[in-house]
């Protein structure tokens, strides 16, 4: 039984924020859910897929966020409630459609959940997605607690239907990925009948009438958000300082105010609906305080909008001092924390407060060093990407023309660091390595003599690299695409994709063969096993020497973590201590100093290498690189 599909109204359960959002959608009677995996949003669809059969939902992993948005919009047009989730980068992909959908409007409730990643813990940027609500004139909700994550998501569906607009719910990592108590409500089982009303075509062109209608919808939204229970004030009637916050900022602010014991001096205005602003509520409290502090993660979104509101009504509101990101009181980049809020309050209220003893950080590091083994940010033991980058490094060095690798985000993005031997030289958006290669690959006429390589994962290929490849072929670019086919969307949690033969709900699906696709696009294609280092290096070298057109080398080898769930080690690997050259000339610890798979260790006492049985996944690649044939692999 799926955790989020319990039919137990009134029961309190411990849910991850993303599960709470999924539960909220179920309580709203959602029928169609779609997304492309991306942390910190991935578990929303992940948990909904587990409830799909029991509650008769359609849940899918779409090929990218724009398609996901289109899939759920179709459901909405047909009268069904639908949800689409993504990370902040994903909204950029979906934005083109979303900023047309706002003009044509929706039928069945359509909720767009965007999980932002302040600090970029698992992202290439820490973009604040809230600005899209303002650009697109879309209602924006920001849950601050796990209960709110569920309840606001449920409410977002009816708000969407009341307005005929998509509604955005913005979460952040610390809401999506933390867990808290959530009280469940009734789980409806609505009968669904999908039908597209052909008398109401959804035409974004011409845009002018749609834009006017959209602005009218926003006018209707304003009174709705004024009365929302997710906006509230806590504190004295005339506070010395008004703290305006939303989302994750609420809990941080509450903790700081309590810790400092300044409940009598600080008023907390917590907003759940941040676009459009509940203007009357905000102005009512602005009037009561001279000093105003904004606490929010990433951009000064609330801060700017409140200042804008203030500017319009300043004659009625009186002089104010605003503190926040613009004043430098709060950091403009990275995550915030209770300590950061405390420090801001301390300086504004002149309260003596030591959030932590001075040596806290150093003592914490010392304690951690004792308890936690040192681990580099790198590929897992037996990861095919390590072998791939080893071959890349060798091939580029041998080729000797300063070739370079263009990459993007995925596990293989670690190719920029030590475990990928620093081979990857660019990281941007999904599929951007291939796109950049399509550009670099046409610069030979301007004197570029360096060979161009791009890497992309299998899931990324379907998501965004295919158009780049079409473009490259059409415009005559010359480069090598390394397609790292590990049969999984590994970085986000092994979600299936069009190449895996399974859907989000575990049903069988046709396999969209990478080799066939690339060949049909006119690329020269070869498939190798990255664990065969010599053959892989040779294949790369051969493609590097070929100065015409698009070459695709498919490096086919299942993700070590996926494989280890299904089967035992490929090989039993051992180091013959007699043969191991150790630090002697001829080896100098190639396996532990240069190759550095975590499954290998260096024994200082004996001056020899060894295999860590607990970590080794038995890929056998180290046996191939050992110059003394001291590492032996035997079929397990």
């Amino acid at each position, binding site marked *: 039984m799926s955790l989020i599909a319990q039919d137990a109204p009134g029961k309190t359960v411990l849910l991850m924020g993303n599960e709470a959002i999924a539960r909220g959608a179920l309580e709203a009677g959602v029928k169609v859910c779609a997304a492309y995996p991306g942390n910190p949003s991935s578990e929303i669809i992940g948990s909904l897929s587990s409830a799909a059969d029991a509650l008769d939902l359609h849940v899918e992993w779409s090929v990218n966020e724009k398609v996901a948005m289109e899939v759920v919009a179709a459901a909405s047009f047909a009268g069904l409630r639908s949800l689409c989730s993504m990370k902040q980068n994903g909204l950029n992909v979906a934005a083109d459609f979303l900023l047309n959908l706002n003009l044509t409007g929706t039928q069945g409730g359509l909720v767009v959940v965007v999980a932002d990643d302040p600090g970029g813990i698992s992202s290439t940027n820490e973009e604040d997605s809230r600005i899209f609500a303002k650009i697109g004139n879309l209602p924006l909700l920001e849950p601050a607690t796990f209960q709110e994550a569920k309840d606001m998501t449920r409410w977002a569906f009816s708000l969407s239907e009341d307005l005929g607009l998509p509604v955005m719910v913005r979460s952040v990592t610390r809401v999506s990925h933390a867990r808290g108590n959530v009280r469940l409500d009734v789980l409806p089982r609505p009968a669904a009948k999908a039908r597209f009303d052909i008398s109401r075509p959804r035409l974004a062109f011409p845009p002018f009438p749609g834009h006017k209608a959209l602005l009218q919808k926003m006018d209707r939204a304003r009174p709705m958000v004024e009365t929302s229970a997710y906006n509230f004030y806590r504190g004295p009637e005339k506070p010395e300082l008004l703290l305006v916050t939303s989302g994750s900022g609420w809990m941080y602010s509450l903790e700081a105010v309590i810790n400092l014991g300044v409940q009598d001096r600080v008023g907390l205005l917590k907003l759940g609906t941040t676009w459009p602003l509940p203007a009357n509520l905000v102005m009512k409290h602005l009037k009561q305080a001279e000093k105003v502090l904004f606490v929010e993660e990433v951009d000064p979104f609330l801060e700017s909008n409140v200042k804008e509101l203030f500017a319009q009504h300043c004659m009625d509101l009186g002089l104010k001092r605003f503190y926040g990101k613009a004043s430098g009181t709060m950091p403009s980049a990275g995550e915030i924390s209770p300590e950061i809020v405390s420090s801001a309050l301390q300086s504004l209220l002149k309260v003596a407060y030591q959030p932590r003893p001075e040596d806290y950080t150093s003592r914490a590091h010392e304690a951690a060093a004792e308890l936690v083994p040192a681990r580099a940010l790198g590929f897992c033991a037996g990861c095919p990407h390590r072998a791939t980058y080893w071959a890349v490094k*060798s091939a580029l*060095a*041998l080729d*000797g023309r300063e070739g370079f690798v263009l990459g993007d985000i995925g596990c293989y993005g670690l190719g920029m660091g030590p475990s990928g031997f620093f081979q990857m030289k660019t990281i941007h958006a999904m599929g951007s390595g291939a796109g950049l290669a399509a550009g670099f690959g046409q610069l030979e006429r301007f004197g570029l003599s360096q060979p161009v390589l791009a890497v992309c994962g299998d899931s990324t290929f379907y998501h965004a690299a295919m158009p780049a490849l079409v473009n490259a072929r059409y415009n005559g670019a010359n480069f090598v695409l390394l397609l790292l086919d590990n049969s999984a969307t590994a970085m986000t949690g092994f979600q299936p994709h069009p190449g895996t033969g399974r859907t989000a709900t575990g049903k069988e699906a046709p396999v969209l063969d990478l080799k066939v696709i690339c060949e049909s696009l006119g690329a020269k294609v070869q498939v190798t096993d990255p664990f065969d280092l010599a053959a892989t290096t040779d294949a790369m070298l051969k493609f590097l020497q070929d100065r015409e057109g698009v070459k695709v080398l498919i490096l086919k080898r299942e993700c070590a973590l996926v494989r280890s769930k299904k089967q035992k080690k490929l090989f039993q690997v051992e180091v013959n201590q007699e043969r191991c050259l150790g630090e002697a*000339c*001829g080896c*100098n610890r*190639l396996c532990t100093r*240069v190759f550095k798979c975590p499954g290998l260790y260096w024994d200082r006492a004996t001056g020899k290498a060894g295999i860590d049985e607990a970590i080794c996944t038995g890929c056998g690649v180290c046996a191939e690189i050992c*110059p003394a044939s001291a590492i032996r692999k035997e079929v397990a």
Partner: protein
Amino acid sequence: MNNGLKGLESKVLDQGQCAACGACLSLCPYLRSFKGRAVKLHDCDLSEGRCFSFCPRTEVDLDALHRAVFGKGYEDIETGPVRRVVMARALTPEFTKRAQNGGVVSALMAVALEEGRIQAAILTERDSELLPQGRIAKTKEDVLTCAGSSYVTGYTLEALNRGPWQGQERIGVVGLPCQLLALARMKASPLEKRTSVDRVDLLVGLFCTWALDYRPFAEFLKKRFGDKPIRKLDITPPPERLLNVTVGNEFHQIPLEDIRAFIRPSCQVCLDMTSELSDLSVGTVEGEEGWNTVIVRTARGEDVLRCAESKGALETRVYPEDKWAHLKQASILKKQRGLNALKDVQEKYVTLPQKAIDAILKEVAP
């Protein structure tokens, strides 16, 4: 000071001074050759390494090396130690047909193998794209596949390091002056060798004025002749100064000036035209097509030459005085050019007694 791979990189590879001898290859996984270049694949932080120790372009004390090989210092400044010099040519067409000149090297190695003086020979063969590489020859047929020259250096000595070896073979090596210098350094190295160099028993040196860098030269030929196979390359003696190229069934001539830019920079600082650290050195004889010059330097060399002669593999003739004087002159000129070039290079790799330097520079060109 031996700095291991770091030193080799900064003093040799990065300076364009690699002579492409192959002494540093197949010793470790850090260096590999690809299309005529020695390439560092990974960083090695050892403070002492065989690559540096064996290299003919790191710090070489020629006086000490000559003492180790011949029992006397760098004294015979013209062409190195000489017991005698003769003209020679192979007697059977199988050697002469594919040979660059008189087929003497092929005949000598074939006889040495057949007579059991050696069980394997390290030679240089070229692939279909002219890329030279070291090869272990064990039969006359193997020797014949390596006949001829492309004027491009290859990593010949890599074959010695790579093997495979049974562990008992006596080994002969045919090499350019830089390759024999490397071999002498390998033998003299104080480091634990873990190679088969101590079983090298016969050294046949080739005369060399300069050698070409594979990549630009191959690119040049490709541009000029497309994908047609190059069957033979041959340089005409002065005053013509032409490279004869047989491409498929066509014959072309290219002025040497057109390929001069492809000469390896490391050849500019070379002081050795006649492969002085050999048992026998073999080259052309100016004005005598189909004959080779053979310099006999050691008793072992004498022995092998006589053996080949007695087996009817080759014939010899007295070397004309005027040609010998001319050869010595050419050798001295190369040394003078090398010493002058050494003044301009950043890394002074070669050590010679001042007496020898003075003597070389004093010799007057004709």
